[in-house]
């Protein structure tokens, strides 16, 4: 049956005045990607924010605050933000065919404009806490608990920075 159908295909195309390359002209029904779930979209946003936080701390450790006695504290907090990022990225499972995302692909990673002060780091930690709290009410429970834990960690960072 399959052989017969295959043999009949050129005839069918000829009857329809089509070339074989025209068969899939227009939108390719096989190239479609499933819509990303709310949790995935939320997770991508949180990952981007965590990448920005890592960049901020890295800049602080690398330059601006290197001479201060806080550098050991900053290195510790940077390490914890990298742990946050690793856990968040481990939870991200994208549908096949989705554009790949990586830390280097994020527009928020890389150079940090302006001087990085302790006050700026504290403000970033507070903003991160608030953002995670806002987002955790809309996602699945396991992800909500990870967000809540990271938010609590960020809150402790504010205290560690003397805030």
């Amino acid at each position, binding site marked *: 049956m399959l052989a017969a159908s295959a043999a009949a295909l050129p005839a069918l195309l000829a009857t329809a005045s089509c070339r074989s390359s025209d068969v899939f002209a227009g939108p390719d029904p096989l190239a479609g990607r499933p819509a990303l779930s709310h949790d995935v979209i939320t997770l991508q946003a949180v990952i981007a924010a965590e990448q920005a936080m890592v960049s901020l701390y890295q800049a602080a450790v690398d330059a601006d605050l290197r001479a201060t006695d806080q550098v050991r504290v900053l290195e510790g907090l940077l390490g914890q933000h990298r742990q946050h990022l690793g856990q968040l990225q481990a939870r991200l499972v994208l549908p096949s065919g989705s554009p790949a995302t990586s830390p280097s692909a994020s527009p928020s990673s890389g150079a940090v404009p302006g001087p990085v002060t302790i006050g700026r780091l504290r403000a970033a930690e507070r903003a991160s806490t608030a953002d995670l709290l806002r987002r955790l*009410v809309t996602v699945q429970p396991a992800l909500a608990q990870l967000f809540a*834990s990271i938010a*609590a*960690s960020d809150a402790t960072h504010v205290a560690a920075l003397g805030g």
Partner: protein
Amino acid sequence: MTRVMAASVSASQAAFAGQAGQAVQALQAGQALQAGQALQAALAAEDAAIFGYGVAGAHLSGSRKSAAEQDWTGHNEARDTLTAMISALGATPVAAQAFYQLPFEVNDAASAARLAAYLEEGVTRAYLGLVAVSDRRLRMFGALAMQGPAERAAFWRGNTQAFPGLDAPG
């Protein structure tokens, strides 16, 4: 490690407790069971912390004793809040035990501080359980409520953690 932030989080938590209390009253049967179990676990943790701080405080002095007293008061207030929320569900709040087995011997300031950190870590975990419930206001209540104990745990331990309340992933 300062304790300034802990106070502000407690204020946020207190402000939110009223809304969470209203949420409790509006829960449907399935949600109420889930929320009730998580609230009872948090209450049990608060009761244990109240007992534990009584032990720890006896071995502390100066500013650390004051900190322990402040934390003991905070846990009492949290216990009252949770008790009211559980009662609003129509459930009976779990009673505190007369005695709690300590995780290790407490006989000096160092072990007292370790006990305080242990207590706060346990309370943090208990509130994280509330974050898994389906009701958004209770979830937010749990997430806010765990910040205070996470900060106090960091104070008593002397360092922060990447994932308070969770078994250190990865």
